């Protein structure tokens, strides 16, 4: 009997031109280890049958709305219904592109975050605008780009966004507060589009319609960078992302400092604590500081591979996040390699224990 992994092909070309495919690398690694890897097509009708003929399933899914909303369902259906190991498993993916879910989780786990308010009713959101401390950071729950994050400077701006979130719904925070005549012009343009049979407010394959909530987070001044720590199993890859020029956001700036000396061990342990609570196969955490205290701003599952690969080394944790040994391992490592190793090692060990004749020397 041959061990067989179903893999959904993935490919992304990043803004900096880096081409990324976790699946390409996984196929290569599988071959090197004598594991049978089968490409599946998750959008085909018989996808369940394709996966059912395998022993495990891996899909590095894109954060765009359509594949993500599908992947969350398919992955757990396979995990729960077939009982197969999957990557990412539910514990790693349930919070994927869901800042509201992340906030409740962090809060329930007692993990420090910027002060965050989630309002589910317009009246509550409006009351908040009257008493809020400005500026605050407005975020959409889903959306991996900085266009889904805005600094709100005054009650007028806040009311504009409340109107957007509770009346039209939005697919992005692209529209800025503007004068009354301009707003009317926007409406007119939208009405003309509707009359012609177009749908100007409709969601797209990339972005879902978000409405009916307001997610407001305390603005933390004095942070010129955030610290991104990517945890894979017991490894931590660290780097700092410097803010875009004249901006408060570091996400997607592409200005990265990989010097590990710049990231304290306390932050590494902090990130391990969050990953441990989640019990995730992998997770990237973004850390800012509120005064001296580190706080977690966001969790990311679909991080870019190249930024992790370019780390000069990584930390490994042996034992508990508070007291366990942290050891520095020199040399670059691809995240897809670390994920694959963690994923297949227990499967191969189980198979060895069960005495499958064809797999006695694969695990190296």
């Amino acid at each position, binding site marked *: 009997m041959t061990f067989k992994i179903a893999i959904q092909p993935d490919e992304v070309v990043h803004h900096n031109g880096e081409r990324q495919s976790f699946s390409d690398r996984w196929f290569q690694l599988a071959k090197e280890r004598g594991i049978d890897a089968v490409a599946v097509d998750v*959008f085909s*009708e018989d996808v*369940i049958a394709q*996966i*059912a003929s395998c022993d495990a399933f891996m899909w590095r899914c894109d954060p765009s*709305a*359509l594949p993500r*909303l*599908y992947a969350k*369902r*398919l992955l*757990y*259906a*396979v995990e*729960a*219904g*077939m009982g197969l190991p999957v990557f990412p498993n*539910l*514990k790693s993916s*349930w919070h994927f592109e*869901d800042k*509201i*879910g992340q906030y*409740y*989780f*962090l*809060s*329930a*786990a*007692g993990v420090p975050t910027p002060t965050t*308010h989630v309002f*589910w009713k317009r009246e509550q959101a409006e009351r908040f605008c009257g008493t809020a401390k400005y500026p605050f950071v407005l975020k959409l729950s889903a959306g991996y780009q900085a266009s889904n994050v805005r600094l709100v400077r005054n009650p007028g701006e806040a009311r504009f966004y409340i109107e957007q979130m509770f*009346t*039209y*719904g939005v697919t992005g925070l692209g529209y800025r507060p503007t004068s009354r005549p301009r707003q009317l012009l926007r*409406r*007119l343009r*939208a*009405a*003309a589009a*509707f*009359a*012609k*049979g177009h*749908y*100007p*407010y*409709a*969601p797209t*394959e990339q972005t*879902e*319609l978000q*409405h*009916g*909530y307001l997610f407001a987070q305390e603005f933390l001044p004095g942070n010129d960078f955030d610290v991104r720590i990517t945890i894979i199993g017991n490894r931590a890859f660290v780097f700092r992302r410097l803010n875009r020029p004249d901006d408060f956001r570091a996400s997607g700036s592409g200005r990265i400092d990989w010097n590990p000396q710049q990231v304290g061990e306390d932050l590494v342990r902090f990130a391990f604590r969050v990953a441990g*609570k*989640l*019990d995730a196969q992998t997770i990237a955490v973004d850390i800012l500081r509120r005064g001296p205290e580190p706080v977690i701003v966001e969790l990311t599952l679909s991080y870019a591979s190249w930024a992790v690969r370019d780390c000069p080394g990584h930390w490994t944790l042996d034992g508990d996040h508070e007291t366990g040994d942290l050891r520095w391992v020199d040399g670059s490592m691809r995240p897809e390699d670390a994920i694959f190793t963690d994923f297949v090692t227990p499967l191969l060990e189980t198979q060895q224990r069960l005495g499958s004749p064809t797999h006695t020397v694969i695990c190296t």
Partner: protein
Amino acid sequence: MSLKIAIQPDEVVHPNGERQSFSRRWMELAQAQGIETFPIDVFSKHATERISTCNAFMWRCPSSARIRLFAKRFLYAIESGVGIPVFPSLKSSWYFEDKLAQRYFFSAADIPCARTDVFWTREAAEQFCESAGYPFVLKLAGGHQSANVRLVRNRSEAKFYVEELFGHGVASLGYRPASRPRVLLRRLRAAAQTLGGHNPYVPGADAELHYGYFYAQEFLPGNEFEISVIIVGNRAFAVRRFIQPGDFRTRGSSGRMDWDPEQIGEDVIRLAFYTARKLGAQTVALDILHRDREPVVMELTANYASWVVRKCPGHWVLHGDPASGPMEWAEGPMHAADAIFEDFLDEMTNSGPIRYHHATKESMQG
């Protein structure tokens, strides 16, 4: 130190006038057993902190979209973040009002179900319309009302719904295919609403926008009734709901129903137990139809009406494996809330050492 359960109050009045509150019953039951309860307002600022001072959390949440979308996140955040037993647990709630997830689960778990095609692109959906067998049943992923289910009779009706689901998205399947002038009228109405500052397709608080998928299910003719089996732990309650004359749907819990257990086949009960076991759910209700003589699962529901369970003259109890384990009949009515609470207490006391550190922290602060 005594156990303390955080409970979110719930109350529903059903169309037949039945008032239902799981939380009230749970609080009574807890009191009778000397267990402390702590009412929670899940929407309050300090809800998670308050719950983390308790040993468990229960919330019978309603199915309206906004609360449900909140509840799914909140419940699992508590389950994983605080690490205490939660009702409903993730395994009992992840599929809640999500027929897409259910469809993939049935197929992955090899549970007999009606043949269902899900298309994620307009092209694939359009291609299907060309070759589909008509009529078929179109469903939205969520929505517990029959407005989210339509019998599609021909290709042009199907294409209308493809346009709805891949064009602007819908909150329900209320709009029917219409003539060209009516379509133009609808567009003009949408334009007028937009001028007035509204998004004509934004759903209300009780609904969500369905967009970017097409869920088509085989129509199963010849079913005069649907069987609802409600599983709570190893108990099964069952009722038949009759299909409305001239329709292919039941009227949920408002139509004609029959609680005679003799009319329910053992195969149906075993299928329900098998499905619940596969899910690992604390409780789940299943709607079952027949394809010829074979029972097939149509849908899973997490928040069934309590009175329907209570009117059952008794229930089946399964010992062991769903396929072959012995089943016995337990005579007499039972509240769903009671069965859930009984099992949940077991779960709390058997889920390893009860966590006291938060409670200790609270008493130190107090």
